[in-house]
């Protein structure tokens, strides 16, 4: 039907696509100094110096200095005992987090699309959001025991709320104009899900997964501190009872590093899977 229409050449359109950002003309070293990384490094250096001073002059027995902590980190990194504790802890983390994603994403999608489901479940989600999770640990121990299962369940409960809540709001925030557009072209419910709702909610799904990951790490440590002194939590309690501040801090530092690496990986994945959302955030 369009064969007879003369093709319009792009030159005829006066509008140009969105222009790329202006090039920064300052010298490379100035730009490097002005980057976020530079400020982060500066902030960290100030923090380390303050810590060092405090630890040296006022810290006493239980607050190690920055350098002591760094040395202890070096110790732990070559200590097989640490790595086996790390592996045991992460077992619960990996299983619990995967369960949270596998259960939480579909649940969030349903809640976002169907208001009835949402009304049924809202109370419970809010309870999960505000309840101090530590309170349900004794309950878990009583019903499931001290094993891997109850650690996995706790990590799941910690993480799943963030996943569900974010996925739900992601589905709800899909532009209604897009849903109307899809309907006008005769999209079926399945096509609407696959082509509009899920891609539209993907940025929020990824955010939920990233925040859920943070909560999963928290859950992993808390359950070991409060319920069963195994693995990393056990190590922390152990160092505390020996007044070994440096190693205690070092363990926590390593957990922090793990959390940062995982969240960084989630962020990277987000930018790969939903690049348009990252662009929107930059522009808006």
């Amino acid at each position, binding site marked *: 039907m*369009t064969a007879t229409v003369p093709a319009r050449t792009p030159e005829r359109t006066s*509008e140009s*696509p969105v222009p790329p950002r202006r090039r920064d003309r300052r010298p490379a070293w100035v730009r490097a100094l002005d980057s976020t990384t530079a400020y982060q490094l500066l902030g960290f250096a100030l923090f380390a110096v303050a810590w060092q001073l405090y630890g040296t002059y006022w810290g006493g027995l239980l607050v190690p200095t920055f350098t002591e902590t760094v040395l202890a980190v070096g110790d732990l990194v070559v200590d097989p005992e640490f790595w086996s504790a790390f592996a045991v802890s992460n077992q619960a983390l990996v299983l619990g987090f995967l369960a949270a994603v596998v259960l939480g994403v579909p649940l969030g999608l349903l809640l976002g699309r169907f208001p009835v489901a949402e009304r049924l479940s809202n109370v419970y989600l809010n309870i999960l959001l505000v309840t101090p999770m530590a309170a349900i640990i004794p309950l878990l121990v009583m019903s499931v025991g001290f094993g891997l299962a109850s650690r996995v369940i706790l990590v799941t409960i910690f993480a799943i709320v963030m996943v569900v809540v974010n996925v739900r709001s992601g589905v709800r925030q899909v*532009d209604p104009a897009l849903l*109307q557009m899809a*309907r*006008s072209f005769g999209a079926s419910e399945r096509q609407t899900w696959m082509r509009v709702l899920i891609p539209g909610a993907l940025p929020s799904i990824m955010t939920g997964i990233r925040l859920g990951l943070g909560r999963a790490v928290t859950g992993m440590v808390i359950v070991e501190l409060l319920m069963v002194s195994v693995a990393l939590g056990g190590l922390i309690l152990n160092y505390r009872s020996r007044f070994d501040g440096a190693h205690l801090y070092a363990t926590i530092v390593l957990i922090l590093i793990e959390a940062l690496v995982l969240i960084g990986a989630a962020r990277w994945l987000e930018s790969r899977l939903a690049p348009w959302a990252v662009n929107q955030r930059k522009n808006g």
Partner: protein
Amino acid sequence: MIEIRGLSKAYRGQDGSQVQALADVDLTVRDNEFLTVLGPSGCGKTTMLKMIAGLIPWDEGSIAIDGVEVDGPGPERAMVFQNFALLPWATVLDNVAFGLEMRGVGKAERHERARELVTTVGLAGFETKRPGELSGGMQQRVGLARALAVQPKVLLMDEPFGAVDEQTRRLLQEELLAIWEHNRVTVVFITHSMEEAVLLGDRVVLMSARPGQISEIVDVPLERPRSSDVGGLERSSEYSEITAHLWERLREMHAEHGRVGGIAS
């Protein structure tokens, strides 16, 4: 032919009062006609268009297309949206092919057809871009190509050029005319611009607000094709007469509803 008979729709306003969005609207859109609908904001013109599209229900009356009652969206109609409604994650090509995809057309075939349409609307070379990388005018070209791709008998356009700048709007009008002159489908085109309504339409339907009603239908006897000399057209005396008349009517409406609403949305 689109036949609208006794179409009415009321909804409850925010203060609880009943608002008559459309009151007893009768309208016949002829085959292959370019019909523009003009009116102040709140006159129900977009509501009416979305009813023809089968997207929103009405209280009373009927809409029939070639004798068949409208009951939801159908393959013979395609819509171009005011705010483009493009999928931000999909490429230009996939956006244009969206309607075909919903109809189960295979990937190779729908991409081939989409590519033709992308060329028709002047976006050749932008197939792999995403909407966020395009200007507003280019985005609406994608919206137009998407609607044309499903080869509709009826093209429903909801203030399609309302969200772009004046210069771009001008180019888009010319191009829409050129495309339509080669492929005369029935067009229902909503606008709040008098100039646009006269420039494009065979007839201009003037609607008034509160309640939403058709107040007059004005014939536009300007010669076609119009795409080649839009500037000359605008200097013609017929054009000035029609726009002057429309302006008179709009001003009357504005005086009646002066305190509650303006002309442009």
